[in-house]
Structures are given as structure tokens and as C-alpha cells.
């Protein structure tokens, strides 16, 4: 009798327990669905933006669109000067930031002893990375355009963008250098090489893929930034291609902005803006994709 009672009581407890477990798993299923939904929305917003730009931009893009000058007050013709302008700006920014960034990274990764000095430099790099892009524009305007007298020009814009991407390049290069195993350095030093010879001929070549990744990310960033070139390099109406580094230029990101906010014939400017946005998006995303692919390949092939 008592055993029966105990058994029924036990099964009742088990039933309640079962229900509670079910509730807990229901809750889990709901929560997992919610997190999956947030991933879906995140990835979805990426695909929506890309597909939207592609569907609106592709019909506009033709060989003429990419290689011709704009005509009729920016309401017809191509965007060649903007492509060229962005190319010059990015080239200048990389030429400025890559050597400076890699040398800084070599110091931080190979030479610096942990201490106050290095901490200050690191805080500096991090803080510079966090400065809003429009503040770089103010700096470029005040220093390069006005104080140094470069005017609104490719040179001013490239230098401003160069400072902007410097932290990106330093971080990527430092990470790449630190990933080279210590035994590489020991082997070189044991052969009688000096520290600099070791860095130059052993560590640096081994770190090239990582540095390249940083460089490519820097290119993508510099090509897409608008605010820093707003007052330092970019112009909307120009009828000729730049002839020197002291000329102002059209640039892809600024061109999109100007087409959408300036001028009066928005119906005719809108398609050009779509085409320009697609070109810029393609350029920047292929850079980022290249960086991702290089990193993956590098991680897989690495022998150490």
C-alpha cells in the first residue's frame, strides 16, 4: 500500500518534473530562434544592401559609364574622373601610411620593451583609431589645406586619409609580426645576424601576408571615406582631369553624396548615383573579401 502511494507520488513528481523540463526546453527553443533571427537580420541587411545596389546600379553601368567624363552638369555621361580621383587619393594615402605603419609596427613588435613609452604609443594608436572621420577632415583642412598651403588638393586629401588608416595598418602589421614564431628569430640570430638583419630578412618576409591584409583593409577604408576629403580634396563640378597633386578631384564616395544632395535634376542624377555606389561598393567589398581570403589561406598554409 505504502509502496503504491510512494509510486504514485513519485510519478506525479516525475510528471511535474517532466512538464518543467518541457517548459525549459520550450524556452530554450524560443531563445535560440530569437538569436537565429538576429543573425538573420544582420546578414539579411548586408544582402539587402548589396542586392539593392546591384539591381539599381547594374543597368546603369557600361563601358562608357566607367571611362567617360560627366556631361551636361553631372546629369549624364560617365564617372571616370571620380574613379581616377579615388585611385590617386588611395595611392597617396597608402604611399604615406604603409611605410610609416610598418616601421611603427616593427618597433612595437620587435624592439620595444614593455613599459611606459610603449603603453603611451599603444594608447595613441588606439585613440587615433577612435577619432571620428570628420575630425580628421578638420585637421586636414587646418594643417594641410591652410597652414601648409597645399590647398584643396589630392595631396591634402591623401595625407588626411593616410593618417586615418595609419592605426589600421599598424595593428595589422604588428599582429602579423608577433605571429612569426620566436624560433625564426633565434635561428637567424644564431647564424650571426644582427637584430635588424633578422627583422629585415627573416621576420618581415614571414609576416608579409598579414601586412598585406592590413594594407588591403586600409585601401578599402580610404576608398570609402567621405568626411575626411569633404574639405580637403573633393569637388563636384570639374571639367578636366587632375594634372598635378595640387589639383582638386572628384572621388567616388563624395560623388554619390553630391549627386544625392546637390544639383536640381535629381531624377537624372539618381541613376548615376546608383551606378557610382555600385562601383564603390564593388571596389571596397572586393578589397575586404581579398583580405579575408588571404587571411584564411595564410592560416591554412602556415607550417609553424
Amino acid at each position: 500500500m505504502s509502496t503504491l502511494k510512494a509510486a504514485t507520488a513519485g510519478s506525479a513528481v516525475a510528471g511535474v518534473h517532466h512538464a518543467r523540463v518541457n517548459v525549459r526546453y520550450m524556452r530554450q527553443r524560443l531563445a535560440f530562434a530569437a538569436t537565429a533571427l538576429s543573425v538573420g537580420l544582420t546578414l539579411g541587411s548586408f544582402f539587402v544592401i548589396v542586392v539593392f545596389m546591384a539591381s539599381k546600379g547594374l543597368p546603369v553601368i557600361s563601358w562608357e559609364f566607367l571611362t567617360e567624363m560627366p556631361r551636361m552638369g553631372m546629369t549624364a555621361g560617365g564617372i571616370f574622373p571620380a574613379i581616377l580621383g579615388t585611385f590617386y587619393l588611395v595611392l597617396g594615402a597608402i604611399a604615406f601610411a604603409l611605410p610609416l605603419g610598418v616601421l611603427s609596427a616593427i618597433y612595437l613588435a620587435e624592439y620595444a620593451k614593455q613599459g611606459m613609452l610603449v603603453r603611451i604609443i599603444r594608447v595613441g594608436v588606439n585613440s587615433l583609431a577612435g577619432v571620428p572621420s570628420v575630425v580628421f577632415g578638420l585637421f586636414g583642412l587646418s594643417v594641410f589645406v591652410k597652414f601648409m598651403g597645399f590647398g584643396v588638393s589630392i595631396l591634402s586629401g591623401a595625407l588626411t586619409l593616410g593618417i586615418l588608416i595609419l592605426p589600421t595598418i599598424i595593428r595589422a602589421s604588428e599582429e602579423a609580426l608577433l605571429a612569426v614564431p620566436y624560433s625564426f628569430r633565434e635561428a637567424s640570430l644564431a647564424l650571426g645576424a644582427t637584430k635588424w638583419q633578422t627583422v629585415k630578412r627573416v621576420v618581415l618576409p614571414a609576416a608579409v601576408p598579414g601586412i598585406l591584409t592590413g594594407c588591403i583593409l586600409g585601401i578599402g577604408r580610404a576608398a570609402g571615406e567621405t568626411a575626411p576629403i569633404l574639405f580637403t580634396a573633393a569637388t563636384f563640378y570639374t571639367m578636366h582631369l587632375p594634372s598635378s597633386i595640387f589639383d582638386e578631384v572628384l572621388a567616388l564616395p563624395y560623388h554619390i553624396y553630391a549627386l544625392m544632395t546637390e544639383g536640381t535634376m535629381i531624377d537624372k542624377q539618381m541613376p548615376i548615383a546608383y551606378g557610382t555606389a555600385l562601383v564603390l561598393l564593388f571596389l571596397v567589398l572586393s578589397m575586404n573579401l581579398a583580405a579575408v581570403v588571404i587571411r584564411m589561406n595564410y592560416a591554412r598554409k602556415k607550417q609553424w
Partner: protein
Amino acid sequence: MAGQEQEGAACPACCFGGVIGGRGKDMFSIKVSSPFPARGTAPGGRTRWVSRQVGDRVIHVLLLSFAFTCIVFLVGIVIVLLMEGLPVLQKLGIAPFILGRDWYPTYEPPSFGALPLVLGSLWVTLGAIIVAVPLGIGAAIYTSQIAGERTREMIKPIVELLAGIPSVVYGFFGMAVVSPLVQRIFDLPTGLTALTGAITLAIMSLPTVVSISEDAITAVPNSYKEASYALGATKWETISRVVVPAASSGIFTAVILGISRAIGETMTVLMVAGNSAIIPRSFLQPVRTMTATIAAEMGEAPVGSDHYHALFAIGILLFLMTLIFNILADFLTRRYKERMGKV
């Protein structure tokens, strides 16, 4: 034949003896600093070694000076902002500038009150964070804890690509897609509102929130989870009551960096948020942020005018706000790393 052989044998022996005898003391002194007396005769090797060491010192100093350029640029930015911005702050006073309710830079007499712009920035950022934080943390939890290896390797590069989309493209997308939607849904005269700006900005700051909180959640040691499972917790109970709380300061860092990115963002809000410098009261009205004001008005402000200096003064406010958030994030990251390192 035998003589020749002897001569041949004597020579290396002699050299060897010379090396041992001549360099014995050097060997010790060298051992302390560097192992490269290398080949060559003793005196030549010594000078060459010295010159190489001097060369290395020079390179060290050169590299240090290169590494310092970042500091130089940062200090340069601060100096430029102060030099160009302080005149107007001295003229108007700091409190009237920050707390002034009217921004009419081109009126006669002009009025430079930055409060509508500061509140505009905070308002749009608040809206963006309300949308981006739950989504971002949810996505981070899924990516780090729930998704399989292969799904994770699909998600992460796409999040990186999302971060790579230029802000002007987001702005364009906001103008062309989000703004008409907002206008139609809420039946407004214009779709360029704080809400439109907040939504667009939220998409933009999502990658920052996702990737940094994902790193933080992944860094939680497995032993935490195992202990929770051993107590009979379900996977979700483990995630929500053990893993996420343990990663909270890392997630907090992600939120702060997302805020910092949203406050500093220029092109998106310039194109999408409607640009009217009034103190925001709802999300369905146009607002103007600090960044948009600088970008929109710098072209018209005559160099050296009060307006020009006032825009740099806004730059000071903007710089300080993002700096505070970044330093806070830096501090939290370091503390988080220390704590996770001890486990």
C-alpha cells in the same frame, strides 16, 4: 709528400690556436651582450661588430621615432582643434556655447548654441543602440555558442564585409529605401527623420557590436559551461545565466565602441537624419548631429569667421565624447582580459 702534409696540417692548427688564444677574453665580454663576433680576423671582426651594434642602435632610435608619429598626429589633432576652436569659446563662454538652445550661425547677429546638435547626436545614437545592441548580442550568442563550426565560418566574414561597406553607401541606402518606408508607415511629410538615421546607423554599428561581443563570449572558459551543465542546466540556461554574465564586461565594451562609432559617424546621418537644428522631442522629427553640422557647414563658413571657429569647437566636443568612450572601452577590455586570464 710528408712535409707537405705536415705544412697543410699545421696551418689550420695554427689558425685555430690563434683564434682560441687571441679571442679568449673577447668571447666572454661578447657573451654578455651579443653572440656575433662572427668570422674574420680578430681586430677586423671587432670593429665590424662594433659598427653593426652602433647601426642597430641607430635603427632602434629611428624606428622609435616612426612609432611616435601616431602620438604626434593625435597631439596635432588636439592642438589644431584647440587653436581653431578656443577663440569662439573664449568669446562666448563655454557654458553658453554648450547649453545654448539656438544654432543660427548665419543670422545677424549669429547665435551659436550647440545644445540641439549635441542632443541630436545623442538622440540618434540612442535610437541606433536600442536597435543594434539586442540584435548584435543575439547574433553574437548565436555565432559563438549555438552555430556549428561551418555556419560560424560563414557568418564571420559576412559580418566583416558588412563593416566594410562605406558610410556614404549606408546613407544612400537610407535615403533611397529606409526613408520612404518610414515616411509611408508613419504618414509623415518627410522620411528624413531621427528614426531613419537611427535605423541606418544601427545597421552600421551592428558589425562592431557583433564581432567584439562574439570575441568576449567565445573567451569564456569551457569549465564555466561544464559546471553549469553538470548542475543540470539546459544549454540556454547556461548561456543566459553563466556565459553571458561572465562575458558582460566584454559585451559592455562592444556596446561602448558601438556608441562611439555611432556618435562619430558623419555621412549617414548627414544624408538621412534630416538636418534641422532643433532640440529633439520625438524620433519622428528631423534632427541634426554634431558631425553633420561640421560636414554641412564647413564649406560655407568663411575661413577665420566665428562660424568657422564654432565648427572647430563642435569638433572639440565630438573629439572629447568619443575619446571618453574609447578610453572607457580600453579600460574595460584590459580588466576583462586580466580576469579571463586568471581563470
